[in-house]
């Protein structure tokens, strides 16, 4: 099973240091981890650093991976004017670094990722005329189609309606368990993090301020300190922890 450990990780854009010495415990496949933090905290930067798109000191340790490129990443911004169908755009995400010849295997993987995300019916559509939410799901499919062992998702639910937010996170959790995949998703909805993620990492100003099981990490004190909101966490009538926000402070 794949594991990921961040060891003293730093990153900078030009001269400005964005991430400083992020060290985490080891995350193992089969789990879904939320990456929390206010705007500009460095969440996207951390993803790019893990992927190796940014340089910096420290180490990203990936162990037990069976494939050559175990990490797939869905970036935050989507949208393109390319004249491609959804199906082609997902296929092309899979074919990077492979030969020009498409194998039946590849088509199978494209079909599977579209079906997993419930967007098989969008296959023939042009990507340029999708709605924002559809685009986001296609973007997720482009990451999933690479059959990753570690999947990094930057705000995968930000453009989705409530139903699709819940549905996507449900699917992701199921896929994480079934395929022993480690999923790290940045989320702005703390309620979703509480409900769907096993562990949480909280970033503030490029520093890791908390990391552990989601229930331990997300506390009223942390919400007040990091997100500047007065909030309570109480079990609902079914016993699930719920976030109740009183006010911004």
């Amino acid at each position, binding site marked *: 099973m794949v594991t990921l450990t961040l060891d003293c990780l730093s990153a900078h854009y030009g001269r400005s240091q964005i991430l400083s010495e992020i060290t985490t415990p080891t995350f193992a496949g089969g789990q879904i981890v939320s990456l929390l933090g206010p705007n500009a905290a460095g969440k996207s930067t951390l993803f790019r650093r893990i992927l190796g798109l940014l340089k910096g000191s420290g180490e990203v340790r990936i162990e037990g991976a069976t494939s050559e490129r175990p990490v797939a990443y869905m*970036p935050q911004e989507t949208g393109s004017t*390319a004249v491609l169908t959804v199906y082609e755009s997902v296929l092309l995400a899979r074919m*990077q670094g492979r030969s020009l010849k498409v194998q039946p295997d590849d088509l199978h993987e494209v*079909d599977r990722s579209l*079906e997993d995300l419930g967007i098989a*019916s969008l296959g*023939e559509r042009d990507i340029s005329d999708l709605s924002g939410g559809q685009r986001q799901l296609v973007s997720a499919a*482009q*990451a999933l189609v690479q059959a990753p062992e570690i999947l990094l998702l930057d705000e995968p639910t930000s453009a989705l309606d409530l139903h*699709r937010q819940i549905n996507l996170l449900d699917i992701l959790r199921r896929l994480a368990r079934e395929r022993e995949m480690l999923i790290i998703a940045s989320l702005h909805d703390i309620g979703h993090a509480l409900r769907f993620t096993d562990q949480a990492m909280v970033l503030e100003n490029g520093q890791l301020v908390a990391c552990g099981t989601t229930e331990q990490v997300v506390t009223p004190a942390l919400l007040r300190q990091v997100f500047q909101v007065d909030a309570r966490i109480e079990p609902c009538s079914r016993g699930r922890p719920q976030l109740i926000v009183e006010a911004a402070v």
Partner: protein
Amino acid sequence: MSSDTAVSTNANTPREGAFYRALVIRRQLILAALTMALCLSLCVDLALGPARYGLGEVVTALFMPDNVSQSVRVVLWEIRMPVALMALVVGASLSIAGAQMQTILSNPLASPFTLGISAGASFGAALALAFGVSLVPAAVDYIIPINAFVMAMLTAGAIHLLSMRRGVTIETIVLLGIAMVFIFNSLMALIQFFASQQAVSAVVFWTMGSLTKATWPKLWIAVGVLAVILPLLARRGWALTAMRLGDAKAESLGVNPRALRLEVLVLVSLLAAISVAFVGTIGFIGLVGPHIARLLLGEDQRFFLPGSALCGALILSVGSVLSKIILPGTIIPIGIITSLVGIPFFLFLVLNHKKASW
């Protein structure tokens, strides 16, 4: 999401890539049709000229040269063939150059023209035509094309160097190109101001673009460059397609956009420079060829790249035919034809197309 799923099961969406397989077959058919149209246009192009031959005679001369008279053979093989084939090679080269510039710069207006490569070439040619200046020592026959080539590559090199600087975005690269166009246009005006009447008309004629100076050696050079560069571009097919999803997405898929952009810029500059050097500035192929290919085939490079080459070659070949038949007895410079006939045709296609093409 459940609604999407419901739709897909109701409509009984074909599974296991059936839709995609059909798409691929349709595209292969389009590529085959373009190839056939190209062959036809080539034959017609060969048949036309001051001496009139029938299509049958032309085909015989092509495949069984021993069965036709000496004069037919010489006219077809030594005079018309290099010109007709040059139209194909230059059309394909310019169109590929335009296609990849549009791809890497994410700009539908990018072409060898907008990046100043053609303007640079014109300036180099004008130096030779007006003042006999040779930028590098060369055989008399080749001073003009070599001057044009050197200036085109210098222009591309300048853009290349500037675009490697930190913080230069793709929009900046396009701006740099446009700045180049204006600089060279002013320099051309300056040359024309100082040059003799005769030289000015030579310069003007050169900038109109003409295939008639094509010879077998020039043709082989152009073919050689195309044959080397095409596979190098094809090798990058998936990465180039990914570039159209935006830099962030391309990066997330393991493509290095900056490195790829510079690599491709070098390759297509070479293609464009060679073409312009041999035939002068032929308008709009580099812009229109890729757009037609995109309308027909989409932007998956496995189809878009050969499609652009075929469309460019076809447009220039048809242009060559038209340049001979519009005013019988006169060959109108091909650059004029491609602009005058190509652009309205192109606008017709774009405006009548149901879907957005960019």
